[in-house]
């Protein structure tokens, strides 16, 4: 399978980080960055990573199944909306935000829209508790999200926009 030159370069860098006889350490970073490009942990990605780190494909699959961010065989949407409902977020409306997202998108936990553009997940604490309730779209953080802001984000996504084009609600990470 062929990857983009950027990903190839990244893989090479990953493999160089660890001692020569410890290439397996690159397994999880390769899977997650690989998934970002390929869409999910596909059979081809598994085979390729297995080959490069020197383990059996079965071992890669066994590992991938452990991690909540790795979607084995089943891609999430292009824009993966993650709403935290853990304790700090729950206390200030996180669960209501999640319900709002379910209704607005017509999706449940880990479901993907028919066109593959949007998916939804109820997630555990994302390390934004002091700026709760928190939402992530892909890797972008949104803090102290109000119901009105969530509406704007979801309306924008439903209209086919990328999160960066929804300028009324800016992401907070630099």
């Amino acid at each position, binding site marked *: 399978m062929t990857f983009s030159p950027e990903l190839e370069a990244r893989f090479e860098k990953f493999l160089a*980080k660890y001692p020569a006889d410890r290439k397996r350490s690159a397994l999880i970073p390769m899977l997650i960055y690989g998934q970002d490009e390929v869409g999910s942990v596909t059979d081809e990605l598994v085979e390729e990573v297995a080959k490069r780190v020197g383990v059996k494909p079965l071992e890669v699959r066994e590992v991938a199944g452990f991690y909540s961010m790795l979607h084995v065989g089943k891609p999430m949407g292009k824009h993966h909306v993650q709403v935290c409902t853990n304790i700090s977020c729950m206390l200030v409306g996180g669960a209501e935000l999640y319900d709002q997202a379910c209704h607005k998108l017509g999706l449940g936990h880990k479901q993907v829209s028919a066109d593959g553009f949007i998916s939804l997940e109820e997630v555990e604490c*994302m390390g934004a508790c002091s700026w709760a309730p928190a939402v992530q779209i892909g890797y972008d953080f949104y803090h102290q999200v109000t119901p009105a802001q969530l509406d704007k984000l979801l309306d924008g996504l439903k209209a086919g926009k990328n999160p960066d084009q929804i300028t009324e609600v800016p992401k907070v990470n*630099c």
Partner: protein
Amino acid sequence: MPYNQPHPLEVRVLTRRFGLPNSQSIDTYIANEGYQALEKATAMSQEEIINEVKASGLRGRGGAGFPTGMKWGFVPRNSPKPKYIVVNADESEPGTCKDRLLIEYDPHQLIEGIMIAGLAVGAQQGYIYIRGEFRYLIGVMDKAIDEAYARGVLGDNVLGKGIKFHLATHSGAGAYECGEESALLESFEGKRGNPRIRPPFPAVAGAYQCPTVLNNVETFCAVPTIILRGAKYFADLGSPKNGGTRLFCLSGHVNRPGVYELPMGFNLLRLINEVGGGVRNGKKLKAVIPGGSSCPVLKADECDLAMDFDTVAAAKSMLGSGGVVVMDEDTDIVKAALRIMRFYAHESCGWCIPCREGTTWLKKLLQRMDDGMGQRSDIVLIGDLSKNMLGRTFCPLGDAAAMPTIAFVEKFREEFEAKVAA
């Protein structure tokens, strides 16, 4: 700018460079005391560095509060194996959001702390394990690492002194259990994040079964200040046996949630009322989780206490990871207990039966209580099941699930009773 306004009561030591223009850059860092501690440490012996850290009273900020200098002292100096420094930037204990800021606003402080640890134990390689969700921080950290290489801070000739130290980031992929040190090491080696049997502890057999210093981000970030300004300066900031300041992550029903750096031993009520501006909407305080979701809840009348490891432990809770979750009088305690147990059931790695089955059944019981279908006997069962899990799981995740549950049931039994099916 940091995500929340600083507060005048803060004692800004680890966060002193936050808010400076371009605080992520090596230039800003060097212009503000950066890498002076490393320079100083290169002239110290390993014993001197470790003794300084011991004398500072620094205790691990990841949760357990283990004395850092003592941990470093466990690394066998004469081992022929390579030694490693591993940074726990998995930050996933609910209520905790501080390591993120330390990386985002001052990544070089972390690099310097790691390198001093390297000198202290004779390690030449470090890795920063960053939770996968913090992708943007991997970018921040990689950039800082590149700068440090370009300036001859990292590399084969650190500061021109012929010392070697290399550093790299490592991405996780979503798993709370990988914050537990031995599971983190398994994950780092490219495996499922199941915990290891201990002993041996990481200091003896950590990454690749080699001697390894594994600490939390904030722990490493305290080290440059200790070396530069001295153990006494750091120790005097805090309370007895609890050196320094700590980043408290205030969340929940407060007017001014945020991350605040305060001396160890700062009073919890003052933290909520003065720093945090009090409970929001003029409500009364009901309860506080003082150190992240695994710490037993404190009732409002138990909150007049000093926030250091020993005082909070004496109140039968834990200072934990610094996540202070404030709950007002309207909070539904059964719902809070359920949400926390749903988390642990989801995150239990399934390796050992008491944790896997215990969290699953506790979740079901708490769900049934919350749905109004519970029996009075369920309340007893929830308490018993939790107590039977305590100390019987392979790693402390089981304890982390059991301890808060026991406290919720014991301290707010009437709320559980009120939900029993008619």
